[in-house]
């Protein structure tokens, strides 16, 4: 089941747009804690470990426009906690990959960003995340 509906995500991203800027794709992703920490926490105690992982997981909504990649860190619905943006003309260290469940997007540079996008994150999360990954890969400068 989808974590978010499209309308609140689009509304949150639209609020960040500059005059004349067009939102092209949007997707919902997460960044989980380090895999070693996940294994350690679950091995210590399963239920508290899973709760700890949920507490330490960051949720993101990303939007690709004709000018920028907008990254919103959200929590408690689509309540925006933090906003980062990456100009498409100045992208460094972009790495993307797509597996059977997740699309991974990583951006290097001064403000690094890494998240994975589950195919069930939103109604069309997989298509949108893959479109963002493809667009970022084509516009990225060498790391």
């Amino acid at each position, binding site marked *: 089941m989808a974590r978010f509906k499209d309308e609140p995500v689009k509304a949150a991203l639209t609020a960040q747009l500059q005059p004349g800027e067009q939102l092209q794709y949007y997707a919902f992703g997460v960044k989980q804690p380090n895999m070693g920490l996940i294994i350690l926490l679950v091995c210590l105690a399963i239920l*508290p470990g899973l709760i*700890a992982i949920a507490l330490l997981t960051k949720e993101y909504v990303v939007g690709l426009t004709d000018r920028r990649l907008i990254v919103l860190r959200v929590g408690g619905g689509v309540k925006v906690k933090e906003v980062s943006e990456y100009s498409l003309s100045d992208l460094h260290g972009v790495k993307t990959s797509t597996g059977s469940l997740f699309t991974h997007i990583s951006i290097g540079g001064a403000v690094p960003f890494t998240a994975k996008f589950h195919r069930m994150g939103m109604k069309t999360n997989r298509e949108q995340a893959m479109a963002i990954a493809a667009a970022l890969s084509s516009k990225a400068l060498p790391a």
Partner: protein
Amino acid sequence: MTPEVAPLVACPFCGDLTGEAGRCGGCGRSKQAPRRSCTNCGKFTPSAEPSCCHCRQAFTSELAWKVPVIIVLFIAAIVLSVAVRML
């Protein structure tokens, strides 16, 4: 042929329209800097600054409450399992 004009971008922190595309002419902050929402006034402030640039509310790390909660959860789980073994 007319030269392409950069769009006028308001500063996300002070709303000023002056300055360059990257830096605000009013407050001098980078317009592209990561920013976070203030829990007190709801306005955006640079993530790198320790307090809100509008209302001066100090920011605290989310881990400040999450780490103690996680520790308490694990202690409770250990105490519960020991208590169940002793019954």
